[in-house]
């Protein structure tokens, strides 16, 4: 398999930067990626992370997974992008530094567009369009903390849901709304696509090693599920909840210190019940209760740090469709 100048022969690994252009200051616009090509034929799985320059935990573990994999034991091809947004990482920001774009808001990109749009266009054409399955690992950046596998309600929903279940996380969320991400576009093309949300800054101190293990399990489990690797799927818990997401709460009312009831995650919430509150930052008065508009299970997702970003997901609710004894 060859991506740009990076080529892996059967049973070998390759690593390099898939260069798609240069900025006006002549910095390379590129994506670091690994190819692990199995000795035997099989499907192609892409594992990507770091579309945001502040979603860094996957980069702590994905290269290690590549290093530990035996290409000769693999069937098919694994492509791993540990940290896609190199300029955002460089300058510690979510969007790219070159044109201030969020790489997951550009759809399939544009052949004739800004440098980021061109980069995503070439990446989509050269990598994602040739993949059978995509696992994107996202985190809560510096503001939120997550643990679930998400599936879009488009394309090969059954295949995506099966892949999501196989990642081993306790909560699998189906019915993720359409967005402008690469993953959504790939899902529309009928590929098995899962967005695994694992980790985030507010839990980094206490859960870093656990979350790295969750990410490693997710990748290896996906390979096993796709019959690319022998082994047994490792589940986080004995039961797995398949949840249909229906309510997404974002900051819309008062701003200040926002406290979400993260201790309620996983619990069933009644319509009208408080899932958080906002306090005036200078008087301490509670200026808004954040109320669940309908019944549902509180998904392990959303803001935790009390100063939220505009547009940040505060909480997500859904209905449990199936409780599976794994």
């Amino acid at each position: 398999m060859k991506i740009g100048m990076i080529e892996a022969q059967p049973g070998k690994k390759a690593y390099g930067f898939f260069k798609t252009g240069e900025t006006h200051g002549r910095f390379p616009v590129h994506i670091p990626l690994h190819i692990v090509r199995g000795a035997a034929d099989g499907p192609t799985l892409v594992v990507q992370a770091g579309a945001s320059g502040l979603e860094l935990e996957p980069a702590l573990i994905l290269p290690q997974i590549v290093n530990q994999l035996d290409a000769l034991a693999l069937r098919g091809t694994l492509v791993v992008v540990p940290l896609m947004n190199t300029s955002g990482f460089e300058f510690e920001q979510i969007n790219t530094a070159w044109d201030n774009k969020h790489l997951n808001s550009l759809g399939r990109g544009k052949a004739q567009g800004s440098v980021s749009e061109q980069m995503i266009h070439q990446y989509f054409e050269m990598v994602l369009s040739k993949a059978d399955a995509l696992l994107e690992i996202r985190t809560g950046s510096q503001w939120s903390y997550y643990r679930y596998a998400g599936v879009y309600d488009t394309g090969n929903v059954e295949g995506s849901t099966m892949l999501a279940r196989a990642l081993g996380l306790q909560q699998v969320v189906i019915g993720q709304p359409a967005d402008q991400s690469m993953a959504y576009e790939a899902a529309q093309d009928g590929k098995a696509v899962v967005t695994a949300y694992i980790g985030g800054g507010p839990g980094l101190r206490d859960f870093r090693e656990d979350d790295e293990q969750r990410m490693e399990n997710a990748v290896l489990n996906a390979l096993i599920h796709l019959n690319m690797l022998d082994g047994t799927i490792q589940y986080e818990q004995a039961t797995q909840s398949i949840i249909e997401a229906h309510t997404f709460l974002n900051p819309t009312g008062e701003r200040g210190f926002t406290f979400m009831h993260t201790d309620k995650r996983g619990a069933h919430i009644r319509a009208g019940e408080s899932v958080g509150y906002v306090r005036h930052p200078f008087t301490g008065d509670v200026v808004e209760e954040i109320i669940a508009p309908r019944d549902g299970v509180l998904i392990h997702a959303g803001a935790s740090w009390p100063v939220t970003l505009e547009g940040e997901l505060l909480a997500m609710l859904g209905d449990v469709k199936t409780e599976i004894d794994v």
Partner: protein
Amino acid sequence: MKVGQLEAKPGEHIFGYLKTPASRSGMRPDIPVHLFAGAKDGPTLLVQGAIHGGEVIGSIAILNFIQNLDPNAMRGNVIAVPVVNRAGFELGERGSRIDGKDISRLFPGKKKGSVSDQVAHIYFEEVVRQAQVMVDFHAGARTAYERYVLFSAEADPDNLTELEKLRRKLVVAFGIDQAAFFPPGTFGNNSAKEAIEEAGVAQITLEFGGGTGWFKNGQDNVRDAERGIWNVMKSMRMIDGEFESDGPMCTVYNAGVVIWKPDVDGLFVRLKHFRDELKAGDVYAKLIDPYTGELLADMPTPKDGIVIPSGQEWPTVGATSIGILGTIDRVEDRRTTDLYVY
């Protein structure tokens, strides 16, 4: 008592904004101030948060504290400022982007200077100078986690000034189990702290909490920070009551071993934990290549020491210290220490 145009009569709590100069766009980072004038005379305590705008655990503790504080049930005055640096708070940043300055380093400020110079001047003259004791909350912002009381190094520990004696008691009275001072030269001079001391104000700084521990420990730190403010009030005899603490002992570290980021850069992975005892050369943390996982650099400690509860945890670090180690200077026993400053 009066702060700027704000005035509280005995038994009153009033809230308002201390006026500051406008930036070029007309933005005024006026400082939110709560005044509690006790029904009876007594000393003045200043509690402040978020002078570094992203460090908000103390701010939340102060908000909880003021909602429970009854001016009629206390002696003296409390000035509570949940957020000193509003511009930094707005953007989640340490300094003020209005002029790129760190207000905490500008005291006593300048009457004629940049916006932050003037803010520091107004705040110093109107607020800081009125206090006998200043509790200054800092934290690890979104990228680190900390839990200790920081105070200035003493010039001659065998011959303490009255202010230093008083401050020693406050450090222990606050109620957490670890405290530290940086010996001279560790981080360079801090003339702002000297200005506060010259004004006769006993300052303790709380390095308390931070974003990377928020999900699990955030509310516990807020609770303990508020507990510390009440303890300081007891120490100042502004209220009556028993001291509450982590436990009877408070370990005070001479924190003179700083581990700095090496010249190379990558993803930072901290390997050691608070209270780990390290020998010179032991690896405290490492930097790895973000794309290949290759080891770029080990970060060893240059000297023996114990990891004090401070330091970076987020995987990117700036040109800053990423860990602080210390030796035990003394262990204070709250059961046998006089915790009252007046």
